């Protein structure tokens, strides 16, 4: 039990003394997760809006597919993306393996179904009176779609925050695509896995505390957004 307590004390020391290795992993995590979430929002929000708003043949099949992908294991994503971006893969020439954009690509694949599914749900659950109100105010078709998306903005942001929570805590993709290279592709989660394996609990705990703080902030903003959505 003592070694855990000692680990905590040491961890705080590492964090506040500005341990470079530790902070490199934190900054890498923030960089890669920000890139992946930006990409998934850019692609996922329009797709989710179309899925929730438009009526097209095969919509139900698409919806089921997206919902199924919500439960995608990170190692499977890692495996698939690895296959695509490794030298022999169709995207091998881009040289993304063991790079931050490579990890971001993998994390985007993980986050995309979450963003699409939650955006679609947000748009579907818009009050039926909204479109009638917009029409009575003189909205044209395009204005109606844009205004509907704007009306669901808090719920769409919630989708982004939820996806961010998933991305920041994943380890499989970062490990497989990034290779856990020190100073380069080592993220908080891969560092924790490595340090724990080496018996270096203090580093692991320090990084765990950072991850918990980020998770706390993410959840805090989620509950704030939820209140806005329900208002």
């Amino acid at each position, binding site marked *: 039990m003592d070694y855990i307590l000692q680990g905590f004390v040491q961890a705080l020391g590492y964090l506040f003394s500005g341990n470079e290795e530790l902070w490199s992993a934190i900054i890498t995590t923030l960089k890669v997760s920000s890139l992946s979430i930006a990409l998934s929002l850019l692609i996922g929000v329009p797709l989710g809006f179309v899925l929730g708003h438009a009526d097209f043949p095969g919509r139900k099949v698409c919806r089921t597919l997206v919902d199924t992908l919500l439960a995608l294991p990170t190692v499977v994503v890692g495996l698939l993306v690895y296959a695509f971006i490794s030298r022999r893969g169709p995207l091998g020439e881009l040289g993304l393996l063991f790079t931050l954009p490579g990890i971001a690509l993998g994390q985007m694949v993980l986050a995309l179904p979450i963003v699409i599914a939650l955006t679609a749900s947000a748009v579907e659950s818009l*009050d039926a*009176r*909204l479109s*009638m*109100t*917009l*029409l*009575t*105010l*003189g*909205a*044209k*078709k395009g*204005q109606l779609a844009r*205004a509907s998306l704007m*009306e669901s*903005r*808090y719920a769409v942001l919630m989708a982004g925050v939820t996806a961010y929570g998933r991305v920041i805590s994943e380890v499989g993709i970062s490990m497989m695509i990034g290779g856990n290279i020190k100073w380069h592709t080592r993220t908080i989660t891969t560092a924790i896995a490595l340090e724990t394996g080496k018996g270096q609990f203090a580093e692991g705990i320090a990084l765990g505390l950072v991850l918990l703080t980020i998770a706390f902030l993410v959840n805090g903003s989620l509950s704030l957004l939820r209140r*806005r959505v329900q*208002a």
Partner: protein
Amino acid sequence: MSTPLYELRKIQRFYGSRKALDVEHLKIKAQRVVGLVGPNGSGKSTLLRILAFLESPDQGTFLYRGGSPLSREEEYRKEVTLLLQEPYLLKRSVKENIAYGLRFRGEIGDLNLRVREALQMVGLEPENFMRRAWYQLSGGEAQRVALASRLVLRPRVLLLDEPTASVDLASAAKIKAALGEARKNWGTTLVVVSHDLQWLYEVADDVVSLYNGRIASFGPENLFAGGWKAAPLGGAELFLEDGQRVMVSEFCGEDGVASLSPDNILLAEEEPSGLSVRNALRGRISQMLYENGSGRVLVRVVAGGHPLTARLTAEAVRDLALHPGKDIWVLFKASSLRWLA
């Protein structure tokens, strides 16, 4: 003769297999105030949605300003707007809610000024309300903001579905005043669904009664729905709560709906005798309204739990010294009732 603003001929609207609206002929003239009355499910809201170009009739001829609005709905929705029964406010500030329609139209030049004007019209202080969020409003304030977001558009036609149904008395008064101002300032045509009959008859030039999707009458109509029995001596009879009987000269089925015009009702202070009319009901006056369109007085009498409306001249009201609470006899011929369905 000028072209009516709206003209509907043999309009039918179905929801699945249910016929929600079946209008034989209806004209609405520009700059008038038209009231729509009728029980729930009588087709009032459906009619409003058709007039607002939000729904199209399944059958019949629907004309707006003398032409078919088909494929020009987007254009016409800029001059016709509808206030829903339960207004929806966008998740924005009060100012943005009111300005939204102006932004759709690209009319953003004097946006602040127009938003302020609209707020003042509905009796909300611009300084206090412009920056408020949608969730910081009471029910009555939300309804007034929703109305302001329509008034700011200076609409040619304003359609209102129960604008005062779920608001407090003060808000209702402000809403009524704002509608009067819109009519005065811009000549806005108003089509209003309301259960506030006193107000409706006071402001409306025409009142249309709907029942079961059909126009029962132009004006307040008395309806006797269901519970009819074949009378032993011919015709049909209906027993009211207190055992009094309404008689009609033909039997048209137990579930038939008979209508009686307020013009066909006579009132008497004493129980009449030696009269040819077969219906004489004892009742009490519950309400008296001035009818703007006819310039007469509508006297509502409750007889055997059933409300009946008679249309009288002001002189007759004065001569009989009518007032709410007074006991009165209601007389009408069995042949003056007509079957609707």
